[in-house]
């Protein structure tokens, strides 16, 4: 089985990830992990903390789409790296309460 470039060239991938800027407004923090998804396909998971304002229900869809498109266009996870991208969003106050390590 051919391994995706995102797995065989992690240093290169990290370089591209770190070069992504400037993030759309509303992003307080973002992290990523590389792992397989539930069916075993290689994937990159983005864990994005939004400001409480940006995570308001009325604007959440618009903001999450903008951020998703930004990452997809800058990185092209499937086309360039062979990784399926998955995005997870939560608000700053939710993260303050849940304190989940993966969100940073």
């Amino acid at each position: 089985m051919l391994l995706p470039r995102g797995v065989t060239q992690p240093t290169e991938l990290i370089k591209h990830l770190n070069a992504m800027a400037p993030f759309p407004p509303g992003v307080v923090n973002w992290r990523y992990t590389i792992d397989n998804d539930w069916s075993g396909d290689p994937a990159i998971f983005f864990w994005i903390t939004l400001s409480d304002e940006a995570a308001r229900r009325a604007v959440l869809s618009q903001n999450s789409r903008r951020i998703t498109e930004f990452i997809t266009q800058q990185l092209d996870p499937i086309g360039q790296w062979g990784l399926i991208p998955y995005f997870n969003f939560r608000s700053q106050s939710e993260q303050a309460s849940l304190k989940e390590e993966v969100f940073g």
Partner: protein
Amino acid sequence: MPYPEDLIQHAIFLSELNLPHEPKQVDLRRAVSAAYYAFFHLLTTEAAQNWKHQSQRDRFARMFDHGRMKACSSMVSSRPLPVDANEIRIAKDLKLVADSFVKLQHARHTADYDNSKAWSRTQVWEVICEAQDAMAAWSNIREQEIAQDYLLELLGSR
């Protein structure tokens, strides 16, 4: 109200239960699962509509396999967009549909099987929005040939 829309409303209802800062994980997880199944049932029901004998359509819809649907959607989602300007809008909607299917299925799998992961309301609302956007995109293109091809491919045909 059609069943997929009922499931979306149910997901919203579950996501809003309890106090603003004290959602229960059980409600959030079930909301994610309902959002995925709303979209899953929309696609399988749409495919079954093409089956001539109405009395067999529910049985037809049960032939779909989650893993095969994911593999097919992942492939469709990674296809480059067409050059022809007239085809781009339809292809973009189909890409959104296929991409959302992959994401929603993973979210549902995590919600149903991975108890180590805590869900927040924002995460769940985003999942519900993804399902709603995908359903809207599907309704734009459902009669198009590439959308009908996609339904066949979801079944595992080439």
